[in-house]
């Protein structure tokens, strides 16, 4: 642990940023919650909220330590002149078990109290898991999902966060291999968060199978005001996410802030233009989706491109996502709320475009292909992205299969038809009628799958 003095301005900013990032998870709950049908809104929101519960506790117990403890790994040839040769795989889970020792005024991380860094990174872990839930809307048992958050946190997120975010000598002597050995640039988590969550969402969507009616009914958002609220809170919180990742309040944070604004602005415009010309109408769901796509794309790049570069990164990635969200209909995986289409694709574009647009005048000081830097950074970005994609997909798939074989994943067909809110939470999202019925319920039917005509049952691998 580096021993520097605590800077109150940097600490103020990072504590603020941490709160902003924490707010992103409720924001995501509303973004996702508004996109499902009225009968599933509570379950959708609960999938995000429960992540705050399980990951919040795990992070304090050993999650932080698995990510930021001194890394276990091995020596390997360096990838750069005088670059590190240590290939770090997993932080020591016991070093900071229960956050021991970190309350001391001497425990610092850079210019921050160690606990401020713990706080900031905790919220990254929470939202990463929550993001995955969008791929399996309306149909996953709440118990199954809760178990998934625990296993995915331990087996996927904590290690990968260490690979990407743990720099040598910051909280431990050795950090993770992507940040140090490979040297891929990932300012705030394009790989560790978005590629990671996005591809894990694909694994889950494949294991759970599509919703009843997928591809034949539109299943449009039931409450676009909630979606817009989510998008607004996400954008707001993302300033903490990206600019906070500078871990100090200075030029780097300010550049990341401006890039987070302008890439997102460009991304919103790009998505709306695609819709305008492809579908005839720019939609509010398109605006919200463009916002998120832009935020995802600029996440890895916020510290390494110029504001003008950020316009390109946001615009290109968003247009790509606007097309990618249609792929699920083509290939038949029900990525219900476009976790793959937006987070995986957007994260991938953002991560790789750094290799093209990295500006040597930006805080990262690296030149991408278009700035005369050649392909050196490009291949590092690609390798980082691919590594996380493969690891996350395989492990998530295995976790998902394990849950399916043990406690089970999917609610029954009748329950899915009646609505998951009532069966899993015994609640209904809304009762806005001014008329007061005594004890009205919205749950109605106890169908079995056999009661449905063949055509209604999709080929879901239940």
């Amino acid at each position, binding site marked *: 642990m580096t021993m520097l003095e605590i800077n109150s301005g940097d600490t103020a900013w990072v504590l603020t940023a941490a709160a902003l990032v924490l707010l992103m998870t409720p924001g995501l709950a509303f973004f996702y919650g508004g996109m499902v049908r009225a009968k599933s809104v509570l379950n959708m929101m609960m999938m995000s909220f429960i992540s705050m519960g399980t990951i919040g506790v795990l992070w304090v117990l050993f999650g932080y330590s698995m990510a930021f403890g001194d890394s276990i790994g091995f020596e390997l040839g360096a990838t750069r002149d005088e670059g590190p040769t240590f290939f770090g795989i997993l932080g020591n889970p016991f070093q900071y078990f229960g956050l021991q020792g970190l309350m001391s005024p001497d425990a610092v991380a850079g210019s921050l109290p160690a606990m401020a860094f713990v706080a900031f990174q905790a919220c990254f872990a929470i939202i990463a898991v929550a993001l995955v839930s969008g791929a399996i809307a309306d149909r996953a048992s709440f118990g199954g999902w809760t178990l998934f958050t625990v296993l995915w946190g331990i087996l996927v997120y904590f290690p990968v966060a260490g690979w990407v975010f743990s720099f040598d000598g910051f909280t431990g002597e050795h950090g993770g291999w992507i940040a140090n050995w490979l040297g891929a640039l990932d300012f705030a988590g394009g790989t560790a968060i978005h590629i990671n969550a996005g591809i894990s969402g694909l694994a889950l969507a494949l294991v759970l199978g599509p919703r009843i009616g997928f591809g034949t009914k*539109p299943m449009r958002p039931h409450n676009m005001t909630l979606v817009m609220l989510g998008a607004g809170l996400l954008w707001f919180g993302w300033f903490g996410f990206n600019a906070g990742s500078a871990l100090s309040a200075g030029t780097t944070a300010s550049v990341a802030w401006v890039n987070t604004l302008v890439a997102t602005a460009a991304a919103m415009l790009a998505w709306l233009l695609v819709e305008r010309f492809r579908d*005839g*109408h720019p939609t509010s769901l398109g605006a919200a989706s463009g916002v998120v796509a832009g935020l995802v794309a600029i996440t890895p790049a916020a510290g390494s491109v110029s504001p003008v570069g950020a316009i390109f990164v946001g615009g290109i990635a968003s247009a790509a996502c606007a097309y990618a969200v249609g792929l699920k209909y083509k290939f038949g995986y029900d990525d219900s709320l476009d976790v793959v289409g937006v987070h995986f694709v957007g994260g991938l574009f953002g991560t790789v475009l750094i290799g093209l647009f990295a500006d040597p005048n930006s805080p990262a000081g690296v030149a991408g292909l278009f700035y005369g830097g050649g392909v050196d950074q490009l291949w590092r970005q690609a390798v980082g992205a691919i590594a996380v994609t493969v690891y996350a997909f395989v492990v998530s798939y295995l976790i998902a299969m394990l849950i399916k074989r043990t406690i089970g994943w999917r609610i029954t067909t009748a329950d899915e038809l009646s609505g998951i809110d009532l069966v899993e939470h015994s609640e209904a999202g809304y009762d806005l009628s001014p008329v007061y019925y005594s004890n009205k319920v919205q749950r109605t039917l106890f169908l079995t799958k056999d009661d449905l005509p063949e055509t209604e049952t999709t080929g879901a691998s239940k």
Partner: protein
Amino acid sequence: MKLITAIIQPEVLEQVMKAVVRHGVGGMTISEVSGYGRQRGHVEVYRGEEYTIDFITKVRLEILVDDPECEEVVQVIAGAARTGQVGDGKVWVVPVDDIVRVRTGESGLAAV
């Protein structure tokens, strides 16, 4: 006594209401419904995919009238609700055995 039920376009509700009231009808009951009929095939695009729309929001009017007025009220409604477009709706008449006004307990014609 008769019960006139009309399914009309939401946008014409106000003019229909004014027309029947001007005609002397003193009360009516209104609700929102979804209609399925000739007016369909409307196609919407969502996330780049096209879907056909089946149900369309309509308004349902129920008016209790005395037999002799019935015919005319039906005409007034139909006239005021007509835009000439597919989806304008239907008006139908059902016989009513008895009517009671809750407030007073009056029944029959007096209750209309």
